[in-house]
C-alpha cells in the first residue's frame, strides 16, 4: 500500500475515534443533569423534620404523626410491653437488634410505619386493629408481624421497621428528623 494513503487512513481513523469518543462523552455528560433532576430537590432534602407533642398519649396507646410523607408510629409502651421486648433472646431474631438500640426512652417507641417488605402501612395503631402474635404491628398486605419494638418477627419482611433520627426537646415534645441517629442496619 502506498505510504501516503496509509498515513491518510490512519489520520482518518484517529479523527473518527476522537470525534466518536467526544460525542459519547458529551452525550453522557448531558444525561447527568437530566438524571440528577429526578433526585429530591434541595427543598425536599432540607425539609423533613417535624415536632410531635406526646403529652396526651396515655400509657398503652399510640399516636400516628407524619414524617417525610410517611406515617410515624409512636407507641407509649406499658411496663409489660417493655419487658416483653427487652427480656428476650434478641440475637436469634431475623434482624437482630436490641430494643435499647431502637429507643431513647424505654416507654417510647418511635418508628417509621412502613413495612420493610414492600412498603405497605402495618396495622396496630388504632384500638381494635389486629396487632399480630407479638402485640406490635401486623401488615395486612403480606402478613408480616412486628413486635412492640418494631422488629420483624414473622412473615416475609426482611428488616425491622426504620427508626428515624430524633431527640426530645422537652419531656413531652419530640423533634423527629435530626438528633440521635439510630443504627438501622440494612437501610
Amino acid at each position, binding site marked *: 500500500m502506498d505510504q501516503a494513503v496509509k498515513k491518510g487512513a490512519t489520520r482518518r481513523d484517529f*479523527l473518527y475515534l476522537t470525534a466518536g469518543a467526544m460525542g459519547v462523552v458529551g452525550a453522557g455528560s448531558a444525561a447527568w*443533569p*437530566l438524571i*440528577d*433532576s*429526578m433526585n429530591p430537590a434541595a427543598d425536599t432534602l432540607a425539609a423533613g423534620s417535624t415536632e410531635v407533642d406526646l403529652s396526651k398519649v396515655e400509657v398503652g396507646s399510640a399516636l400516628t404523626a407524619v414524617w417525610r410523607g410517611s406515617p410515624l408510629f409512636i407507641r407509649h409502651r406499658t411496663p409489660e410491653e417493655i419487658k416483653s421486648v427487652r427480656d428476650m433472646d434478641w440475637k436469634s431474631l431475623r434482624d437482630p437488634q436490641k430494643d435499647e438500640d431502637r429507643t431513647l426512652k424505654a416507654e417510647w417507641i418511635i418508628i417509621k410505619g412502613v413495612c420493610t417488605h414492600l412498603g405497605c402501612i402495618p396495622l396496630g395503631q388504632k384500638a381494635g386493629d389486629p396487632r399480630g402474635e407479638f402485640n406490635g404491628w401486623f401488615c395486612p398486605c403480606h402478613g408480616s408481624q412486628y413486635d412492640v419494638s418494631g422488629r420483624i418477627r414473622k412473615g416475609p419482611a426482611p428488616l425491622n421497621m426504620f427508626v428515624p433520627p430524633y431527640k426530645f426537646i422537652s419531656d413531652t415534645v419530640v423533634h423527629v428528623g435530626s438528633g440521635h441517629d439510630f443504627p438501622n442496619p440494612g437501610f
Partner: protein
Amino acid sequence: MSGSQEKEKFNNKTIQWINDRMPIFSMLNNEYGKFPMPKNCNYFWNFGAIAMVMLVIMIVTGVFMAMNYVPSTAGAFASIQHTTREVNYGWLLRYMHMNGASFFFIAVYIHLFRGLYYGSYKKPRELVWIFGVVLLLLMMATAFLGYTLPWSQMSGWGATVITSLFSAIPLIGGGIVTWLWGGFSVGQPTLNRFYAFHFLLPFIICAAVFVHVWALHVSKSNNPAGVEPKSEKDTVPFHPYYTAKDSFGTAVFMIVYFAVVFFAPLILANPDHWKPFNSLQTPPEIVPEWYFLPFYAMLRSFTVGIKVAGVTLLTAKQQGVLAMFGSILILFFVPWLDKSPVKSARYRPVFKWALRLLVLNMVMLTYAGALPAAGKALVMGRIGAAYYYFFFLVLLPYLGKREKTLPLPESISADYAAHHGGGAMKKALIPAALALGLALAPHAARAADTPPLPNLHWPEQGIFGHYDMAAVQRGFQVYKEVCSNCHSMKYIYYRNLESIGYTKEQVKTLAATYQITDGPDENGQMFQRPGRPTDHFKSPFPNPETARAALNGALPPDMSNLVNAREGGPNYIYAILTGYVPAPKDFHVMDGHMYNEYFPGHQIAMPQPLVAGQVQFQDGTPNTLDNEARSVAQFLDWASNPHMEQRKRLGIKVILFMIAFAGILLATKRKVWSDVT
C-alpha cells in the same frame, strides 16, 4: 422509505438476524448511509439536521420540565420557580428549553430561507415543502402553548390575545373563543388543556418530520445549483460526507446556543415573564416572542375598516387577522405561485434581490412588532405587510414568467468545481447573524420616556463575574431592615441564605426571630411557631388585600424575581432607589405619589425607601445612599439568579468542550471531503 428488494449482507450476525426479519439496517443504510446527496450542498444544508437536533433537545428537556410542572393557575408560576431554584439542574432544564425554542426557530427560519433561495419547493419537491409549512404551523402552535404555561403576565395575556384572534370570525367567533378557553376568560381549564396540547404536539411534529423526510428521500435533496444530478459523479453518499458536515455545523450552532443558555439566558425573554399572571391588569406593552413579531406587526397594521356603501365588509380587526394567518398560509402556494423553470436564485438576478429584500423586510417587521403600536411602528408594519404580499402575489408569478435568467451550470460536478471551497461557510454565517439580530431586535425597540439607566459596574457581570458576597449580605440587611416591611420574597427560603455566606447556626437564629403561622393542630387551630431554615421568607402581609388596605391601595411587588422582572436589572433597582428628585415645576404629582426620574410615568406610590445613613452596616461600610442602593441591588440580583455562579462555571466547561469538539469535527469533515473533486 423505499425498501430495496435485494438482501444485504452484514458482518455482524445479530444485525444480520434482525435485518433478515425486519430490514431496519438496510433502511438506515439506504437512507442515511449510501443515500446519494449532491456533492455541492453548502452549509445552508445543515439547518435541517440542526432543527432535528433542536427538536430532540426540546422534547427531552420538556419531558423533564414536565416532571416538575404543576398545571394549575395557583401552582404553575410557583412550580416553575421551584424548578429553577430548587430542583437539581432545574435552571439548566428551563434555560435550555426556553432558549431552545428561540434557537429552534432560528434554525427553521434559515432552513426555510434556504428552501426559498434555492427553489427547493419546486417540482418534484412540492410535498416536501408543504409538509415543511405544516411543520412550521405546528411549531408555532407548540411554541405559543408553551409560552402560556409559566402563567406569567406574558403567558396569561399572550394566551388571551392569541385566542381572541378567533373572535374575528363572523357570527361564531365569540363562541369559538369561549370554547377555546373553557370559560369566560383565560383560566384553569385553559391552562390545563394548553398543557395537554403542549405535551402532545411535539409528538405530532415528530410524525410530520418523518413524512417531511420521507418525501425528501423520494425526491432527493436539492442543491445550490438547482440542477438535478445527472450521473453518479454528481453525488456522494450521505455517510460519511454529510454526516461529517452536518455534525460540524451542528456543533457550531450548539456553541452559540450554549453561549446564550449559560451566559445570557434571559436575553431573549421579556421581563414581564417574571411576574405572575394578573387577570385584572394587562402589562403596559404586550409583545410576543421575537419569532412571532413579523406576523404580529402585520396583525397590528390594519386600523381602518373597509366599507362599501355604508356596509362594513371587513373590520380592521378582521383584516389584521387575515393578513397574519394569510402570511403563513400563503407559503403553501409558493410552488404554484413561482413557475420559473430555474430553481436556484443564483441564476435569477432579479428574484435573488427581491428575496433578499424580503429578508430585510422581515427584520423591519420584527423591529416594528416590538415597538409600541403607534406612529412609526404602524407605518413600518404597513410597508412590511405590503411588500410581503407583493413579493408572494405579484413578484413571484411575474418573475417566474418574465425574468431573464442566467445560464445554468452543465452539471453538479461542474458547479462543484467552480464553487469548491469558496466562502460558502461565510455565506451561511450571514443569515445566521441576521437571525440572531432578528431575535435581539425587540431589545433595541424597547424605549421609555425615562432617561437612560445608569450603567454601573456589577461584580457579577460578565463571563467570569461572581457575586460580591459581602455586598450581597449588606443588601440582605437592607432588605431585612427596610424593604421587608412592605415587600415579600416568597420564593426564597431562609436556608437559601447559607449560599451567600451565612452559617447554618446564623440562619437558624435568624429564622427563629420570625413567627410563622402553621397548622392546623389537632384541635383544628392555626398556631404561631418560630421560623425554621426550611420556611420561606415571611411575607409582611398575609394577603394582597391586607397590603393594599395598609398601603393606600398600592401593592408592593414580590421581590424574589425583581431583577429579572425589570428591564435593566440591577441598574434599574439602583436607579429607582436613587431617582427620587423634586418634580419639575409643571409636573403634577397625584396624592399619595412621589416623583421618580426613572419610574415609568414618573409617579411612584412607594415613598423614598432609602436615604443616606438609614442602615448601620454590620461590616462598617459607610452607609451612603449609593452603598445602600448598590448592595440591595446585588442582593436582589442574587435572589433572582441564585445559580448564576454555578451556571457560568458549567458554561465555561461546556463551551470549551464544544469548541474542541467542533475543531475535531471540522478536521474530520475536511479529511472526509479531501477525496472529493
